[in-house]
């Protein structure tokens, strides 16, 4: 359903994303991993229209969307969550989600928007009460709200950006299960960007690894976790090297490599 060809993003002389191509099939969960600054978020920004690509093509359901304005891409069927939740604090939870439901589905009608909002809130497990305030939500609740907003826009493809940062182990597992349920029950295809490899490897069908803006590996989680270049990238990075090693180890254990 998504075919990305030769995607390039240059900032001045710096190539943040260098000639990346990949495909995503209907109903798939694709994991997108890589160290900080490897170009994951830049790819997401180009897919959702926030940044225009320097070169390359993005075919979504056979239609070229590279360089379209973000609101057109969202209405066209791609939803996006953010690494750092950005709710509207002065609106209620319901208002946040119903707004996404109304505009994300092309301003159809109030009842359709409210229906979409209620379904999205029920899916992520947030109160559908009209007046519930954003203020009481913790880190996990804010991530759920972020997800509900994206779901309410009625996406066929969901771009989930590092959904689990700032959550504890149980919350992480719950959130990962929720992404799987969104795929299983709603039939929504998902691309999931994540730092924390262990949980991601457990849920995704395929995984793609980026380093310095280039694709260095792609395939089944088990194969990728054993790939020498991937291990080197995750070990050879910054001060978190030991942590990364532990994470990679944990990932291998969980998927039984």
């Amino acid at each position: 359903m998504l075919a990305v060809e030769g995607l390039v993003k240059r900032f001045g002389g710096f190539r943040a994303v260098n000639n990346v191509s990949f495909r995503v099939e209907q109903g798939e969960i694709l994991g997108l991993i890589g160290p900080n600054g490897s170009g994951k978020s830049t790819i997401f920004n180009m897919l959702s229209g926030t940044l225009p690509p320097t070169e390359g093509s993005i075919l979504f359901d056979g239609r070229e969307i590279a360089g379209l304005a973000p609101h057109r891409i969202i209405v066209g069927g791609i939803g996006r969550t953010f690494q750092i939740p950005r709710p509207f604090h002065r609106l209620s939870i319901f208002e946040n989600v119903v707004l996404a439901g109304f505009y994300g589905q092309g301003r159809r009608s109030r009842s359709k928007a409210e229906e979409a909002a209620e379904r999205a809130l029920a899916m992520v497990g947030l109160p559908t009460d009209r007046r519930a305030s954003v203020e009481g939500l913790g880190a996990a609740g804010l991530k759920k709200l972020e997800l509900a907003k994206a779901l309410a826009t009625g996406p066929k493809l969901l771009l989930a950006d590092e959904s689990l940062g700032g959550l504890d182990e149980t919350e992480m597992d719950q959130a990962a299960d929720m992404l799987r349920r969104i795929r299983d029950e709603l039939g929504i295809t998902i691309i999931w960007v994540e730092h924390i490899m262990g949980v991601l490897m457990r849920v995704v069908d395929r995984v793609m690894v980026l380093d310095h803006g280039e694709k260095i590996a792609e395939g089944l989680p088990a194969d990728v976790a054993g790939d020498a270049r991937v291990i080197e990238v995750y070990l050879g990075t910054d001060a978190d090297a030991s942590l990364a090693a532990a994470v990679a180890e944990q990932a291998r254990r969980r998927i039984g490599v």
Partner: protein
Amino acid sequence: MQSFLNIFDIYLLEAVINGILLGGVLALLALGLNLIFGVIDVTWICYAELVMIGMYGMYYLVQVFHLPYWAAAPLVILLVALLGAALHFLVIAPLLTAPPINQLLATGGVLFILQSFATVAFGIDFRNLGIRLPVLALGEMNFSYARLLSFGAALVGMVGVYLFLTRTFTGTAIRAIAQDRQIMPLMGVDPKRIYLVTSAIGGGLAGLAACLLVLQYDVHPFVGLSFGPITFLICVLGGLGNFIGGFIAAFVFAEIISLGGLFSDLEWGYVLAFAFFIVMMFIRPAGLLARRS
């Protein structure tokens, strides 16, 4: 002595009530400017000049084309709303990512263009509608119907905007975009459309203010100077972009002007109001309702 006190109290009460009536119209003006600033993050320096164009619109429709007041008013509101949208489309939209000083200078340029245009097109004569509304005598106090009507219409206008902002999706999107402008497109909202609608509402509020002010004041090309600066001070005192702060500040200013005018000339009321503003800028530089950090 006793009779002196009685008269004094009556005058005081009259001044307080007149201050409230004046505050309604000032709050309406401040709301329009605050809406534009809060949502688009641009200050329309030429806001009062839109009001001036609206007042001329009323003059021509009523005096030249002989339309009744109630028929001319909606046309003028529509006209100035379109003018606001055009201002955004032609001047603000191309400068949306420009430094704020460029935006200020550009709308400042529009101010002089509108003043000069009015001077050339309408001349420098003072014009009015030729409508003299009666005066309401309440005991020994006198209130002009023009002020009462203005106050009532300003309140209706503000309630209308409040309902629009809270009850419709477009209104909710306008409030939301004021909080985070980058996230809105990712909810499927076209920010350009929201900005255009907001500018039209800001213009419409200027149009409504024009319909009300023209009942009390003569129109001339520089009439914007009599309420433009005070509108800016109100918005800054209330905290730019803060609707409730602007509402409260409008009544604070109106009372200072009205009560200050009671003890001396009306001009001294303005002097007091501006002096109060300067003092407040030292005490609460971020506005009346700013949270203490």
